[in-house]
């Protein structure tokens, strides 16, 4: 069961993003940088939610399309679609950069701890989804960057690591 690894007494600052019609939030502490959309190197024969590889200051960074991953529809090519660069920990403990391409990345929110709720349903297929926040009348779900990497994507990252 996913649990928020954050201090529950402090407000949580998070970057908002959209998937479909829903709003999600990813804690700023998980992020390295917010990047604009850019040309990616395509990776043939990978799951369709792998958007490609980017050259980030000389490092090959895998970028995942969160919209395909979660709804099956690719991110639109518009200005508000951005790449959230996160730092994730692999099974072997090594830190690794991962890009999450997401729509509607338009700002940050301050989530108060008293507005956090636990979802009643945990879906084993979506371990990246965390707590819910009630923010200005909207339900906002918190995403864990490190949980997006499951099974296949972990394997991909490790492959890439051997080459580079």
């Amino acid at each position, binding site marked *: 069961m996913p649990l928020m690894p954050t201090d529950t007494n402090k407000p949580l600052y998070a970057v908002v993003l959209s998937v479909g019609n829903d709003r999600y939030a990813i804690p700023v502490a998980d992020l390295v940088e917010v990047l*604009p959309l850019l040309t990616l190197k395509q990776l043939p024969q990978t799951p369709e939610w792998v958007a490609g590889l980017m050259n980030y*200051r000389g490092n090959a960074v895998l970028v995942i399309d969160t919209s395909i991953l979660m709804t099956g529809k690719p991110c639109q090519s518009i200005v508000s679609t951005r790449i959230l660069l996160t730092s994730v920990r692999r099974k072997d403990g090594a830190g690794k950069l991962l890009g999450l391409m997401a729509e509607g990345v338009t700002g940050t929110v301050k989530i108060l701890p008293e507005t956090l709720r636990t979802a009643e349903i945990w879906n084993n297929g979506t371990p990246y989804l965390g707590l819910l926040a009630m923010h200005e009348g909207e339900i906002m779900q918190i995403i864990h960057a490190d949980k997006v990497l499951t099974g296949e994507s972990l394997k991909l990252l490790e492959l890439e690591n051997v080459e580079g």
Partner: protein
Amino acid sequence: MQTYSREIAVIDDCWNRIGVWSRAANRCPKLQETVHCRNCPVFAAAARKIFEGRPLPPDYLDEWRHHFAEPPPARRVPGHSSVLVFRVGGEALSLPISIVDEICQPEVIHRLPHYASVVLRGIVNVHGQLRLCFAMAELLGIEDSPFEPNGKRRGFPRMMVIRHRESRFAMLVDEVLGSLRHAQDELLPVPASLSRSLAKFMLGILRDGERSVGVLDEKVMFQAMEKSLK
């Protein structure tokens, strides 16, 4: 492109209907709190929808790809210092950014009876605190008029709040131009052609592209300010 213009069309421009740009008798109740539409989250959200929903300009993707493929820009280098560059008359001058507390619009200056000189203009109210207000041009003896021949004031006059020990003063300048980082060895000697009255305030000159920026010695400046109070 078509879906984009359609999306803009569905935005409710309430600011024209019931906001500050409308002639409606019954105005939006939110104005009680926000005062002006530009402070309202509805207005901000609409703006975001318009600007953030734009299709990508041509070459956008490749430009950013090249940008982030480059090594990161150099971080802070020790031995560098930052100065705030401003304009007084025709001179571009600067002070260490560390002594500048804030830059604000010029406030109403209250003259001090029997005390005000050309250098000490009076007192001003900055966030409820009274500060002595000095004119940088007169303090440094820069005579170049801030007025153009047609009587219009040149540039964007600003008031800088600067800190000296525990005190804070307001200083009038003709324009704030930005900040500049420089290494110690980039500071060039003051040219002999500079008027002696101004040269005594200067630590040196910095080259910033085409422009040369005078770096003021804040200690000399504070001494001159204190002298003007006597």
